[in-house]
């Protein structure tokens, strides 16, 4: 190695360059330090949070759902155990082969493409539920357990509905659409509206997980809190009895409410369905149910709206009395029809009722008396009293698809049909036909309002809510006249439901009103030659049979409202059913 006689100058240059590079190195170190300061000191909280979020996993454990009881603590909806085949990806690499093996061993009819799609999304430490497991399947699985490393049987809870007659009130549960919620929630009727009340608080398992999602240790556990129970005003025995009284081949509904506090004691609709099939995921039955043109999911008690027919007449009578349009004693002559503007309006009794006062008009359901009254009446007075007595209202009691129905008025007709009101329409409205649309629950409430003297309790299903009254007080005298007449309907000879007193003298004595609501209007020509009576009318055009009654008539406790679609006359079909149900309620003191 030759020694160079390097000049002083070139050494100086090297030393100067060295200084430059050291300076650059120091500046770079400083920049790095500043960056570290920014990350570790200034933004420490941000990164600390991220770090905790990384490692902390919160697993929710579903709470036990609150139970639903009838008024006597009979269970209507509870929880029962459910077993599922669950696959855990982390337990075996061959988990998909095992799924196929399971499917061929126990005929589960699994959808492999769907499962493999779902499995890809699943964290390998949280299991994926393949299918429900029946007892036979569990036994079969246990025998061959050694074949399956990645599949386990896991117990969880499902909703259990012991009595199918309540499905149309309690509703059912469904899978939550939000993926963040692990468990199903109520999607119909009370299960839906009382979701918050019933659901409870999920438990939380806080655990530390690694980057692959594997739990390293559990940090803390918050136990789940069971949901609140719900006590209903319904009575199990009455509900079952009333359902048995509905003709199985006809659509219809029975509502029984308590006069004193508006408690709904039973509320039936036919046809009905069994909510359990949703919990048991019986897909064919669910499909059949949804496609059934009888619409079993449709509860006629509060979603079904019909012309009330003659049970509406007390409202017309009360308007007449309030407006001084009628004298209750003064008689009107019924010759079978009444005319207005060259048109005849017929009484149901073709030969006429003869001389009729108010009581007789209600008792024998004379239409002509009410036509004469209607000629002097303003439709808006009818509408306003109807609303005061519980019609044209939705009751907020947690039921899905509750409607308001319709009480026609001038304003309504202008707004919806863009036509002005004709007095002839008042005539048919006053006998409960025409545009009138009421539900059986509304009719029960209407009679509750009359029996309570105008201020009536709003119907309720939740036993633990306070009774709330609404409506305007009626004149005491007017109320007495109406109730007397309604009692006479059943209790006095020639009353439209007098037959009830004769055929079942042992039953509780009731009052009430029959109604026959026309599905089609009868043509003038047909009426003249009695064609409409002899004619074979297609069943779906036959009259609806309506009856609203209360028992016992001297001190009413229960109101029953019955409608049988296309059942014929109210006195023949609906009234005997209502009488039986009222008798049952009274004798069993529900």
């Amino acid at each position, binding site marked *: *190695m*030759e*020694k*160079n*006689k*390097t*000049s002083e*100058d*070139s*050494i100086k*240059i*090297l*030393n100067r*360059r*060295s200084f430059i*590079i*050291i300076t650059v*190195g*120091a500046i*770079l*170190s400083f*920049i*790095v*330090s500043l*960056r*570290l*300061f920014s*990350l*570790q*000191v200034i*933004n*420490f909280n*941000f*990164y*600390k949070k*991220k*770090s905790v979020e*990384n*490692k902390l996993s919160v697993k929710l454990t579903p709470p036990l759902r609150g139970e639903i009881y009838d008024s006597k603590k009979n269970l209507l909806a509870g929880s029962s155990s459910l077993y599922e085949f669950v696959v855990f990806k982390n337990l075996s690499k061959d988990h998909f082969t095992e799924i196929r093996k399971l499917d061929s061993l126990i005929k589960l009819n699994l959808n492999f493409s769907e499962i493999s799609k779902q499995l890809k999304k699943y964290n390998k430490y949280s299991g994926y539920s393949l299918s429900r497991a029946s007892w036979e399947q569990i036994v079969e699985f246990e025998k061959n357990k050694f074949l399956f490393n990645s599949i386990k049987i896991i117990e969880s809870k499902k909703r259990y509905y012991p009595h199918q007659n309540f499905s149309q009130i309690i509703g059912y549960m469904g899978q939550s659409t939000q993926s963040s919620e692990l468990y199903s929630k109520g999607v119909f009727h009370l299960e839906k509206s009382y979701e918050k009340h019933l659901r409870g608080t999920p438990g939380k398992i806080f655990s*530390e*997980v*690694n*980057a*692959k999602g594997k739990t*390293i240790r559990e940090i803390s556990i918050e136990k789940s809190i069971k949901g609140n129970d719900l006590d209903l005003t319904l009575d199990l025995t009455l509900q079952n009895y009333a359902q048995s009284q509905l003709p199985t081949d006809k659509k219809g509904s029975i509502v029984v409410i308590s006069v004193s506090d508006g408690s709904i004691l039973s509320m039936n609709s036919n046809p009905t369905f069994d909510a359990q099939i949703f919990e048991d995921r019986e897909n064919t039955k669910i499909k059949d149910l949804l496609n059934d043109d009888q619409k079993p999911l449709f509860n006629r008690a509060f979603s079904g709206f019909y012309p009330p027919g003659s049970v509406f007449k007390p409202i017309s009578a009360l308007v007449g009395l309030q407006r001084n349009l009628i004298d209750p004693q003064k008689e009107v002559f019924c010759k079978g029809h009444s005319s207005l503007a060259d048109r005849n309006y017929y009484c149901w009794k073709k030969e006429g009722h003869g001389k009729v006062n108010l009581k007789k008009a209600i008792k024998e359901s004379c239409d002509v008396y009410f036509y004469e009254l209607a000629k002097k009446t303003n439709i808006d007075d009818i509408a306003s009293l109807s609303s005061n007595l519980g019609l044209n209202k939705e009751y907020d009691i947690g039921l899905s698809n509750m409607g308001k129905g319709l009480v026609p008025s001038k304003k309504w007709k202008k707004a919806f049909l863009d036509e002005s009101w004709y007095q002839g329409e008042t005539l048919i409205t006053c006998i409960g036909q025409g545009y009138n649309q009421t539900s059986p629950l509304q009719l029960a409430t209407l009679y509750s309002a009359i029996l309570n003297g105008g201020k009536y309790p709003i119907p309720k299903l939740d036993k633990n809510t306070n009774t709330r009254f609404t409506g305007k007080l009626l004149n005491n005298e007017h109320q007495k006249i109406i109730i007397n007449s309604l009692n006479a309907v059943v209790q006095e000879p020639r009353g439209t439901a007098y037959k009830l007193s004769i055929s079942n003298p042992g039953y509780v004595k009731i009052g009430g009103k029959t109604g026959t609501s026309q599905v089609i209007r009868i043509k003038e020509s047909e009426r003249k030659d009695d064609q409409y009576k002899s004619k074979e009318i297609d069943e779906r055009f036959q009259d609806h049979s309506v009856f609203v009654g209360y028992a016992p008539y001297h001190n009413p406790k229960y109101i029953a409202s019955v409608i049988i679609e296309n059942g014929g006359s109210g006195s023949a079909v609906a009234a005997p059913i209502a009488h039986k149900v009222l008798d049952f309620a009274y004798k069993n003191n529900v």
Partner: protein
Amino acid sequence: MFREFKSIYNLNWIYIFILFIIFWIGEINLYSAAGGSLDPWASNQLIRFLFFLPLFFLVTMLEPKFIYNFAEIFLILVLIGLITTLIFGYTGMGATRWIRIAGFNLQISEFTKIALVIFMAKYFHKLNAEKTIGLFKSILPLVVSIIFFILVAIQPDLGTAVIILVLGLVVIFYAGIKLIYPLLSLGIILSISPILWTFLKPYQQNRIQIFLNPDLDPLGKGYHIIQSKIAIGSGGLQGNGFLEGSQSSLDFLPEKETDFVFAIFSEQFGFTGSIMLISLFFIMFLIPVLKTYKLTQVFNKIILFVLSFKIFFEFLINISMTIGILPVVGVALPFMSYGGSSLLSNLIICALLLNFMSINEKKRMFS
């Protein structure tokens, strides 16, 4: 070939002490990276270290003259090694970087850095530098640097290739090229960088794009940077404490034993620990550099300055990568990243530095 044994007393033992401390920090770090276990990294790295130690002291005892004389031979050996790597090397993670020699997987590119610096030091020494060096005299070292850059870049190993090129440029700069040329070339590089961009492999372009915005791909390529920043940031001022780094122990940090060891260190020991580590490396850089001011021989000066710079530079590049101010290019943290070739080459560099620091030009002239 070797000096007398007693010259071992002339070694800078402070430097050796700092080196051992840094290695020991690296060991502790690898131990914590494995979740408090010697297995698999800390023990392996320690065995390598002990195995390399005799070689380390052997190099400190080499006659500088021997190194000077064989400068070209070293470079040719490395060149053959690199070409062999390209042809016979084995491939891992999409790159052909290693060859097997006597049962070891060697990354020749690591040793290229040393050979290149030695070669260029000799070149400039021979130039008998008068004043500043013109462009013409710089062309040979530049071309050699670029050849090695390309040979490593096509493995592909962009990180190491860039380090090789930078070292070549630093030698040229340090040796005293006229300032106008580096400034001019910087201008040219900046203006043609868009064209260079198109020569990058898609994964390299990807890394740079994600470096600029890691949230483009938070679960894919950006994951490394994001998780590394979380680890470092969550360390805070004081750190989470020894073995208390959750990002590391719960495996959120990828490549934690190699490129991202600094994140593990910083998560446990915080800003304080990080600044201490930077200071240690800076002191380690300065000790040989300060010695250069006492030397007059260009060869000695370049070896001491540039090789010392190499260790510090790689340290800075590596931590800049982990804190997200440079793209992730795969540069190891000297003495702390797990890996044999990097450890061996850095030990050889330190041995060379110790060797050249013990030179007393007044007493022992080149003859």
